[in-house]
């Protein structure tokens, strides 16, 4: 501190009070000469009152970092430890957080955003190392809203210019399936519901792959598809005992949250399996429905590539052909094509031949909710005359204005007296 004296060595007035471990020292900032220092040794009785200072607090490394940044970095480290990530992930996530903190937009953001930012950095690190971590998990850990999280995530990816690969579905299946508590008997899980982990994993993977091939995964949240696939895999491994168990009960047993879209994904997956079953000779004779097809999932999965090829026409080729035939039709071509398309199967007389369905995402198979007619092309030049009468229709007459003002005043008065007599 200037004014406190001069350094005996170089004579500068720039003396700084600095602490070296637990010892106060007055140091010259020019030459480094220690001018005065506190007591280095203590008596035995004094030592009993002293407390040791941790290294991180004594080195001053945190004096350059602001408190909010320190808090954020601590949060990042805690998240990594809770998620049991490998140690290298922590360093990367911390580096990203520090980088993000240097951006002006982030430094001045609200605390809520900075907390969410910690989660974003961890998520980006995991994505880049192919560690399957969903945004839902992070949001639960952060107690944050998904929309706040998504806004911050998109912003930080853009600002830092990061290349974030997609979520790896296979790894996600493995981690998610392993979290189902069905692999050993317990008071809540009867023996007939217990399943071998490897078998269930492999079957679930095959079902998810099938869903991916048949447009059930693109554009949708991956988790409900995996839940539905796990449920089907589990059911099919011992159908006689498990067909009675519903999806909701299954998730409760397994101690896993049931995502809302999982039931519709389940229906879609069953529809695909039914279509495939129609192509298997020995299954055609059994009139399968959504429940009975589960028993044959094993067979269907074994020949899934061939069955998918046979069961579904290429949706895109059909659309091109169908467009030429069905131009002008308001309905989706899918329906028209299904009726028009002829089946190559030889079925017993009397049975309507089932034409191969189109391999399209479900949103394209459903009929459009409302047919939007093309808006008529209006030849408006923008410089047309505007008639007075057209404008007058939007204005209140003086009488109306008076009435409106009276009504407003009356309303104010009514609000002013909340308890009318």
């Amino acid at each position: 501190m200037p004014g406190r004296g001069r350094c005996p060595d170089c004579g500068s007035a720039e003396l700084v009070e600095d602490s070296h471990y637990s010892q106060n020292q007055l140091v010259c900032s020019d030459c480094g000469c220690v001018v005065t220092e506190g007591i280095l040794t203590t008596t035995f009785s004094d030592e009993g009152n002293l407390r040791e200072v941790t290294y991180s607090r004594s080195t001053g490394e945190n004096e350059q970092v602001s408190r909010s940044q320190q808090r954020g970095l601590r949060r990042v480290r805690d998240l990594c430890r809770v998620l049991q990530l490998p140690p290298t992930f922590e360093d990367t996530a911390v580096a990203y957080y520090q980088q993000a903190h240097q951006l002006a937009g982030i430094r001045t953001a609200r605390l809520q955003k900075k907390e969410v930012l910690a989660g974003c950095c961890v998520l980006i690190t995991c994505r880049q190392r192919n560690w399957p971590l969903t945004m839902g998990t992070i949001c639960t850990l952060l107690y944050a809203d998904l929309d706040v999280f998504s806004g911050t995530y998109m912003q930080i990816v853009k600002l830092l210019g990061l290349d974030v690969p997609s979520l790896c579905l296979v790894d996600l299946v493995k981690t998610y399936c392993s979290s189902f508590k069905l692999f050993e008997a317990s008071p809540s899980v009867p023996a007939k519901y217990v399943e071998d982990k490897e078998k269930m994993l492999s079957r679930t993977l095959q079902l998810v792959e099938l869903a991916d091939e048949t447009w059930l995964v693109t554009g949708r949240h991956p988790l409900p598809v995996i839940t539905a696939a796990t449920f089907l895999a589990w059911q099919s491994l011992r159908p006689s005992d498990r067909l009675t168990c519903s999806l909701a009960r299954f998730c409760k047993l397994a101690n896993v949250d049931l995502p809302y879209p999982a039931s519709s994904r389940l229906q879609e997956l069953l529809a695909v399996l039914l279509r495939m079953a129609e192509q298997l000779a020995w299954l055609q004779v059994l009139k399968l429905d959504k429940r009975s097809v589960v028993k044959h999932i094993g067979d269907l999965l074994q020949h899934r590539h061939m069955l998918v090829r046979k069961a579904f026409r290429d949706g895109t080729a059909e659309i091109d052909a169908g467009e030429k035939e069905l131009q002008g039709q308001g309905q989706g071509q899918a329906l028209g094509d299904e009726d028009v398309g002829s089946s190559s199967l030889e079925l017993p007389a009397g049975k309507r031949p089932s034409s191969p369905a189109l391999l399209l995402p479900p949103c394209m198979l459903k009929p459009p909710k409302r047919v939007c007619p093309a808006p008529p092309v209006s030849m408006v030049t923008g410089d047309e005359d505007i008639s007075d009468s057209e404008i007058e229709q939007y204005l209140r007459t003086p009488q109306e204005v008076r009435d409106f003002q009276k009504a407003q005043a009356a309303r104010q008065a009514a609000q002013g007296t909340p308890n009318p007599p």
Partner: protein
Amino acid sequence: MGWVRSSATPSLVHHLFPPAICGSVDVGDQARPPARPLVPCSQPWPRPRLATSSRGPINGFCAPHAWPTQPQLHSLWLFPPFPTSQLPTVSPPPMEETYLELYLDQCSSQDALTPSRSPLLSPAVPYDVDMLTSSNPETAFNPQLEEVTEASGSFSAVDLSFLPDELSQENKDQTVIRSKHEVEENCKTQSRQIRLPLPSQLDAGLALNSSSGSGSHSHLHPADGNSAQPSPEKPHSMPLASITPMTPMAPISECSGIVPQLQNIVSTVNLACKLDLKKIALHAKNAEYNPKRFAAVIMRIREPRTTALIFSSGKMVCTGAKSEEQSRLAARKYARVVQKLGFPARFLDFTIQNMVASCDVRFPISLEGLVLTHQQFSSYEPELFPGLIYRMVKPRIVLLIFVSGKVVLTGAKKRSDIYEAFENIYPILKGFKKA
């Protein structure tokens, strides 16, 4: 009979299709030609009409589709047709008359076309070798050339107006050369050299693009071995500015055949007067004003169905229109309402801020594949949003691409940007047709 000579642009031997003109260069050893008698045209003054491509070629050039919106153009009507200036009776009447018609067509179609926002002159080919003495090759006539060439049946049947300038440059140059030859033949009888004095007062808006001009110099030099014949007649169309080729009036994309439909236009306009929002909300039936929620009046009109946010500073935002013209009409209607309420509202700086369009490519798209190959432009987070967000760099448009094949384009300030963006994305999407 005779044409009245305009005094606005004096002494410009401004042939009907003035070639690239440098404002400062007076080409030719001749002094400014004295007022030439305009060749009397026996035909009645043709009614101005839109140029059509059915016109026959005039020395290889036909009426351009698009005409510049140069204000000075009208004065160009009155200049003598080029070759006949020296020989009042020599120039073939049909040529001259059709030149006039073309002039008129151009001028009349000025009004029909939206003003081009592009620089008035795009790179032009200096048609005349003598003109090349000017150090700044004029631009501007290239687009005319383009348009003229497209219409010309003999040279090219392809409509080039949608192509960028450089693509049609070669065609232009070729047609220029050919036309030069033709014209030279036609004017063989003319003994006197007709120089093209460059109009000194060409309008200031002419942007000179020397690079393309110099590029075309080389084309013209060899062609014009006979420099005695400057061809004033580059029977080009007129003028000085042209609509950018990239804003076609009837946009049919050649490759995809799908035209994105505009769904929403956001525009702003400055009414240039302070407004009393309370008074507006009181006197207008279609207005809502809740100062605690938002500091502007929200006004709606039925035709065109739009919503406007009117701020007390006099600025207004108009949303919901389905075309640029509708947006402008709606904004004018809002301004008129404000005027009728007693404020001195004007209509300044109307600008389109954003345009949103949508279309359907009709085949499913594998978004995972698209994000893998176009990583630097795409962002696909199925956990957050079912569509892929593609940020195109040129033109700067954001596209939302969905698995069903529906595409939403947004962020455009001009309609052409949207069409261009869709044309750019369509081949990419076709590549991801199969899963």
